């Protein structure tokens, strides 16, 4: 789907989307459209429950006197309440509602909305962002899909008084959307396609955008002493990889970077502590943390963010085999700390332990954030509306919570503390890799904290938010790309040169 911006005006064909404020107030062009159709819009609204409240929609097919195939009325709610999120939801709703239509072209008449505090260019740019995010589709493996089952929409034109400004405002958002889509793509790919090596190849492609990409293989990691990460991957035929991406966009090259570390278990069988069969196919998305880091690096490079950022992905496949890690094994991490592996299915923290340590050791970041589909317990704790936030720094936590509110990817802070840390004491090693069911997400975070030096650090458990079983406002069912928008926003608001 191609998205463009244009001056306001009534098109002669295709579909049009008309924003409506609460109280059935039409935009200026909407009112003109209503007049030209002899009041068809007003009559249709009166005959339905459509009042222009947010998330309401009403379709009028082929109104008289015009060449239009359909008019889609979308509620925006109260003008004063219009913010970026609502503009995005509006654009997303346009695409969602037109998904089953036959039109290849549609125009959004977002010309003038009285009292809209965003301004028409910003509104249009965010509507475009929402449309692009919602219009995502992962259909490459559907070889027999009938044309009528695919969305017909090829071209979406968003109208704005200052359409050039809208276009300029959309450019960085478009780069973020491209990052989100990359994340959704790699997360959606099955594990026979995306494995550690092919995932690393995806990262290498970012070199085109000016990202410096390095990949460490098992031999190199062994030399560095990454026994925790390597232990997880040792049962797999696939070679484990550590991917290091660097985007040096700050004014000064020696400016300490912000660092992002992602768990990338390309498939998680659970290992010898094997998972039950039901639902195991979902474990292809156990690399969503790394997927997010990849998409985020693409977004930052794509919009030429003025920041030095490091993205690290720990990529392994967790398989049972004759050479697989066993419960009871003790591994030595790069930090020198020893870990008793009680449950081979608590493997993400083992991968992150070495990736986090390597990150701090080599890059001395000013702030370090990891993302991981780490625990099932976070789904029981918070459901799928918020990711779990664990943080050793109140200021960083506040920034992340704020970025979450602004980006629509919200996080909820969870507690940490010594009393929880006690749950991962081992009888034989420095720690064990699971603290039991109780406070399962917190003890996982405590485990990670043992590999964090004196740096502001946040851990985001995205096990509940990386994948959605139902359509969400700007996210179709499937891989969400959670974290890219959140962290892009965090960087934009706090870590970029002005």
């Amino acid at each position, binding site marked *: 789907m191609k998205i463009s911006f244009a001056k306001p005006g009534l098109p002669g064909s295709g579909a049009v989307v008309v924003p409506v404020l609460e109280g059935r107030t039409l935009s200026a062009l909407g009112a003109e459209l209503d007049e030209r159709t002899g009041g068809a819009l007003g009559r249709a609204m009166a005959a339905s429950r459509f009042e222009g409240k947010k998330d309401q929609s009403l379709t009028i097919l082929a109104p008289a006197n015009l060449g239009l195939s359909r008019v889609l009325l979308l509620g925006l709610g109260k003008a004063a309440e219009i913010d970026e999120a609502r503009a995005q939801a509006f654009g997303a709703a346009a695409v969602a509602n037109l998904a089953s239509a036959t039109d290849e072209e549609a125009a959004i008449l977002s010309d003038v909305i009285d009292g809209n505090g965003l301004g028409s260019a910003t509104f249009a740019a965010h509507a475009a962002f929402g449309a692009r995010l919602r219009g995502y589709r992962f259909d490459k493996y559907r070889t027999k899909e009938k044309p009528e089952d695919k969305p017909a929409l090829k071209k979406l034109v968003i109208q704005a008084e200052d359409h050039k400004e809208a276009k300029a405002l959309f450019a960085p958002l478009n780069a973020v959307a491209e990052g989100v889509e990359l994340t959704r793509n790699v997360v959606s790919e099955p594990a026979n396609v995306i494995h550690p090596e092919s995932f690393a190849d995806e990262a290498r492609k970012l070199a085109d955008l000016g990202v410096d990409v390095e990949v460490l293989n098992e031999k190199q990691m062994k030399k560095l002493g990454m026994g925790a990460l390597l232990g997880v991957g040792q049962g797999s035929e696939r070679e484990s990889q550590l991917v290091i991406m660097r985007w040096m966009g700050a004014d000064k090259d020696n400016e300490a970077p912000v660092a992002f570390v992602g768990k990338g278990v390309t498939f998680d069988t659970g290992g010898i502590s094997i998972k039950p069969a039901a639902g195991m196919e979902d474990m292809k998305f156990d690399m969503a943390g790394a997927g997010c880091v990849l998409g985020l690096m693409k977004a930052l490079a794509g919009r030429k963010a003025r920041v030095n950022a490091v993205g690290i992905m720990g990529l392994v496949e967790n398989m049972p085999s004759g050479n697989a890690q066993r419960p009871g094994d003790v591994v030595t991490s790069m930090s020198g700390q020893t870990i008793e592996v009680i449950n081979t299915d608590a493997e993400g923290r083992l991968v992150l332990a070495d990736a986090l340590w390597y990150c701090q050791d080599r890059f001395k970041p000013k702030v370090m954030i990891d993302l991981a589909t780490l625990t099932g317990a976070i789904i029981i704790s918070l459901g799928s509306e918020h990711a779990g936030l664990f943080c050793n720094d109140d200021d960083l936590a506040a920034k992340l919570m704020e970025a979450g509110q602004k980006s629509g990817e919200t996080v909820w802070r969870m507690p940490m503390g010594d009393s929880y840390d006690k749950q991962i004491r081992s009888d034989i090693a420095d720690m064990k890799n699971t603290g039991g069911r*109780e406070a399962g997400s917190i003890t996982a975070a405590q485990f990670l904290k043992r590999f964090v030096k004196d740096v502001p650090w946040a851990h985001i458990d995205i096990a509940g938010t990386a994948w959605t079983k139902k359509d969400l406002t700007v996210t179709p069912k499937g891989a969400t790309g959670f974290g890219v928008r959140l962290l892009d926003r965090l960087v934009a608001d706090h870590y970029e040169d002005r």
Partner: protein
Amino acid sequence: MIGEAGVPIVFEGRPPFADDPTGSNDEYIGAVVVGYWRGCLPTPAAVVVDRASGALTRALAGSHFAGEEGDVLTVLAPASPACERVILLGLGDEAELDPARLRRLGGIAAKALMESTGGRAVIGLGLDGFLAAQFAYGLRLRGHTPLNLRSRPDPDRPAGPAEIVVATSDPDAARNLFSRLESVAEGVHLARDLVAEPANRLTPQAMAEQAAALEALGVEVEILEDAALKAEGLGLLAGVGQGADNPPCLALLRWRGSGEEGQPPLILAGKGITFDTGGISIKRYDSLHEMKGDMAGAAAVLGAMRALAGRQARVEAVGVLALAENAVSGRALRPGDVLRSYAGKTVEIIDTDAEGRLVLADALAYACSRYRPAAVLSLATLTGAVVTALGRHRAGLFSNDEALAAKVLEAGEAADEPVWRLPILPQHDEDLASDIADTRNCAWGKVPDALHAARFLMGFIPEGVAWGHLDMAGTARTEEDLPLCPKGATGWGVRLLDRLVAEGWER
């Protein structure tokens, strides 16, 4: 006996052996407790005791005792002074002495004193009146003997001290404050004992009788029996209790302490499932015996009411205990049944083991309509999900009111009963939507059940009423000794509620 009083604790101005280093003039002394700061720096009393024969210095030389908070070293039968034992207590850093640390130290001392075989225990830490009272509070909380139904006493168990003397520079101030704290401790002990009571002894009726016992302290108590529940339309509470031979009831406790008529009260409501089999959606057999403690929310409310009445708190408070036994029988509630609540809302029962929210919903709606409260708190061992989320160290807090939530968080920290806020989300209405009734009581699968339960309850709180809900499934019991509580029932919630009232509602 439930809520039995502990060993007498008295305050004296004279430190141990102050005017007689040999102790020969003193009446029989069992144990002496003296303090050391971090780095083994002795407090004045420790210097005095050591001066008699150097016993402490010799013992310290051969130990790892470093004066860190909680370090304990016992010197048995020193040559002089004349006492059974000297307990050296590590006090930690002298700089940051706060009341919470004193309470913990009191708890540690209480545990060490249990080895004592009788006589007076004398504690000389050089504390002012305020800190001495906090220390004594810790002694009292940790020193509580858990409910014991053994038919004969354990011959190996030492008698412990017959009396504990806490030396302080201001005995009057200490006595004054401690008398209030001791009322709270009595409430805590009552709650612990009720939670420990097995369900064949503690039925809904028996629990209501425990509530009625507070009349002696000036609490007005009213019991709505089963027939009244049905007549008043508390269909959820009646429904949960319908499978048991021991009928359900609602206990209402009113404490009028403000001295003013017409003040809106604070409502404290507790889930009181005296035994939870799960009902027809029966639970697994392992750990099922712990379900005798599924009335810990109601026990906390009862304990808090005892604390408030005991210390004559200047507050209007209403305690509401939703009491029922969730049993399996031929007349038990079935999954799929639809009940009509007091609020009028109909509820489809998906899982009969999600019963706590049902009894609380009716209790909350009834109490709100009857008392027009200033604010409402509910306490319940409500969900396993909150244990998965927060473990055993914090309870989950849910609230529809920012100001109230902030007060509860603060009270929890101040009272050593920390809570953590979790969200209530409108999106969860979809998960609780029923095909046949206004709502259903839970959803299946890998779901955030603690959040669902809170959202469910919120639907029974009238618009505009500030409400806080504490899911204490993880904190009602402890599998290990804690500084202020021996293994077993914790009495969790009493101290938080008392603190909340003291800071937020008393005039």
